């Protein structure tokens, strides 16, 4: 035991299986005090499951866990919390009806005599915490009124706030944050590391792994590949270890070829805007073109997507599709016109967890065809299988309930749903959020090859690299306004400048 003094958490021989899936198999893992330990692997590799086993959400089939040198069975997330393990789970798990302050502090709120909650102190404390993360919001407002990014930061604030924390677990905390916000989270992580907290950090952003982590543990298909010191593991070998092959296709990707003769204008917006979300915007999209949308969170990218798809009604300007003016704005109408939107927040507005993968994929397609032309079961299975293979969705069968999939695989199911409608214009809002490197490249390739077949695509992403790799043209948004349009072969520097608004 003496030798393990610097270890805070040790996992030995843990296995966990779900019906049809061996999620973890004899995994060993150890976390030292005062280190940031990255846990990486493809979608469905078992990262979140490992976390859930450590925090008592799932019971392991076998194996044992040592906490601070003592063997320990964690009974529940509450128990984990009490002994000093605080966790931000992959999907934001907070209560949207409660205020931001309550979400951060509920369970250890400041109280007066007799157990009465001191609301004033609680709100002040929450405000301080959020300001510390550079977020200035009304902490008394219900969480539901804020964006995914704020909700994510709230969840992180909750975990950071526990002062007796010895282990902090962050499962893809930065997936819906932009660079600036991620940096703030990293600062906090480094500060905690100084005080001796052990941090487990899960992410699919390779650069972030190198930015903050001290050691890396790689999982593949539920098995441990190994634990490495970050400085001794070059990116290439890291990716190789994650996906089990080298990522050659990552390099030789070409953009969609554009044939100027064949190109027609597919969509044209004129002064399209909605007060509060998007300033009047002009935009054209041609057939077979991939247009990237860059900008910070809240810069109005999603707003434009929602207006074009008809989720929200514009209050100025108009849209023309195929030269026909659009007068009815609704997602259903758009679908019939051949426009599809793959939304950014899969939990709120997309995935139906209690349906199977097949049902989720067929849904939009069936809506487009009309509910009377019913696809028979055999066709449905064929289509579902096609996309499962195409997007590498890791699942025992297409009859698996979507809620049982890993986070990244759920994202792929949504993508499949909209691809299956064979749209003329596919709007992708952060399509690769939470998706592993290998599949990310696959999806980018897929978009380009579909564009070569004549589909247009609007590609919204916070990862500039990805926007640059896929787009023929890049629209930059800032403060709910389109600021400029850049050619697809522009440099990252130019885009950054446009985003930041530096002249």
């Amino acid at each position, binding site marked *: 035991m003496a030798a393990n003094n610097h270890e805070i958490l040790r996992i030995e021989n843990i296995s966990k299986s779900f019906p049809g899936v061996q999620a973890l198999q004899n995994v060993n893992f150890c976390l030292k005090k005062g280190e940031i330990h990255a846990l990486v692997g493809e979608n469905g590799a078992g990262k979140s499951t490992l976390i859930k086993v450590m925090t008592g959400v799932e019971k392991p089939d076998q194996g044992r866990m040592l906490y601070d040198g003592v063997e320990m069975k964690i009974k529940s997330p509450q128990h984990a919390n*009490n002994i000093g393990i605080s966790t931000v*789970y992959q999907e934001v*798990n907070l*209560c*949207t*009806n409660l205020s931001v302050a*309550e979400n951060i502090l509920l369970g250890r*709120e400041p*109280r007066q005599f007799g157990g009465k*909650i001191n609301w004033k102190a609680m709100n002040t404390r929450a405000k301080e915490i959020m300001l510390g993360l550079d977020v200035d919001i009304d902490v008394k407002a219900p969480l539901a009124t804020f964006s995914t990014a704020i909700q994510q930061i709230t969840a992180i604030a909750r975990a950071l706030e526990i002062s007796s924390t010895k282990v902090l677990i962050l499962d893809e905390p930065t997936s819906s944050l932009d660079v600036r916000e991620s940096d703030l989270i990293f600062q906090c992580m480094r500060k905690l590391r100084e005080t001796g907290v052990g941090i487990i950090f899960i992410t699919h952003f390779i650069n972030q792994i190198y930015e903050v982590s001290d050691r890396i543990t790689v999982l593949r298909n539920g098995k441990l590949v190994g634990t490495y010191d970050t400085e001794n593991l070059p990116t290439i070998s890291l990716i190789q270890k994650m996906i089990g092959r080298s990522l050659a296709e990552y390099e030789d990707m070409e953009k969609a070829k554009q044939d100027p003769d064949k190109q027609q204008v597919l969509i044209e917006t004129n002064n399209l805007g909605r007060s509060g979300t998007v300033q009047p915007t002009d935009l054209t999209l041609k057939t077979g073109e991939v247009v990237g949308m860059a900008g910070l969170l809240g810069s109005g990218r999603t707003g434009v997507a929602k207006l074009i798809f008809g989720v929200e009604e514009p209050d100025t300007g108009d849209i023309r599709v195929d030269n026909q003016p659009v007068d009815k704005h609704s997602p259903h109408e758009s679908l019939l016109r051949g426009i599809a939107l793959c939304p950014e927040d899969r939990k709120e507005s997309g995935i139906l967890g209690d349906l199977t993968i097949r049902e989720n994929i067929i849904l939009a397609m069936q809506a487009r065809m009309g509910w009377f032309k019913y696809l028979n079961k055999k066709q449905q299975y064929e289509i579902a299988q096609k996309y499962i293979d195409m997007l590498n969705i890791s699942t025992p069968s297409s009859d698996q309930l979507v809620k049982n999939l890993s986070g990244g695989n759920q994202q792929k199911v949504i993508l499949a749903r909209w691809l299956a409608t064979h749209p003329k214009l596919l709007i992708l809002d952060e399509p690769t959020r939470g998706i592993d490197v290998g599949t990310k490249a696959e999806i980018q390739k897929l978009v380009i090859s579909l564009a070569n077949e004549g589909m247009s695509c609007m590609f919204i992403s916070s990862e500039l690299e990805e926007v640059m790799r896929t787009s023929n043209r890049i629209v930059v948004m800032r403060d709910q306004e389109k600021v400029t349009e850049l050619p697809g072969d522009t440099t990252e520097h130019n885009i950054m400048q446009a985003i930041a608004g530096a002249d």
Partner: protein
Amino acid sequence: MHRIKKFLFKNGPLLATILIFFIVYAIGGQLYPAMRKPQVFFNLFINNASLLIISIGMTLVVIMKGIDLSVGAMIALTSVASAALLQQNFPPLLVILMMTLMGILFGLTMGAITHYLKVEAFVVTLMGQFFARGMAYVINRSSITITDDFYKFLALTKIHVPFFENAYVYITSLVAIVLLVVTFIILVFTRFGRTVYAIGNNEQSALLMGLPVARTKLIVYAFSGFCSALAGIVFSISLTSGFGGYALSMEMDAIASVVIGGTALTGGVGNVFGTLFGVLINGIIVTILQFNGTLTSWWTRIGVGILTLIFIGIQSLFYVRKKHT
């Protein structure tokens, strides 16, 4: 100005409920001048004490996205059981104590079954209803009169309302009001209360936030059981008898009051103050029908039914609007 707007927006359903109550009251006062006497208002608290008590318990259950269909039957069981015990000359305070303990245990059991065995609350509490109603008739098929002096004292002691001449309520009404205030404080100012809201919004999240989900759920059902037993005691005091057929489908009146009071059946929102007005609206319709004297009492049901539908409409309008802002 902005703050007023925000306040109105936040409390829209509750304010609508209060407004409707006063409108209905004013209409009644126009039609029947006798209704303008203050005592008519205070009678609402006398006649609806037990409904108010079970509705308070129900509010907590519904905020937590549960339901408790057993409360009406529990009133009947409590009334019969206490009448039977008093007949055997048990001391009245002991009877009251035993009854509340029975209510708590009963609720606790139902809560444990829903939580640990993952059975729908609807099913469990419906079975609870059958059980309680059945037990009531097993104890005695017919009505038992209560002759105990202490019960009579509780039933007849008038408490004068300050500032109103000749206006009074009974001890039982006071019990209901005290319960209301205490519950209000619990919901707004304690960790337990906030956890109830958290569970109603998303039980899984509450669990992952490390909140004591199991304990809170059990306590809430136990509390509802406690309220139903208390309501049963109040019921038997005001009728000085116990009978297995009392309070038929009163749980539905309670649910309607809770919904009219702005608590959403989808969980996570609501408060007991609204429930009070839900109960009062129910009561004022009954009062108007009594003053009228020719309409059948079934009009109450029709009125409450329509109002409940309107309120569910108002609520969903508010929540749709809220989502979009």
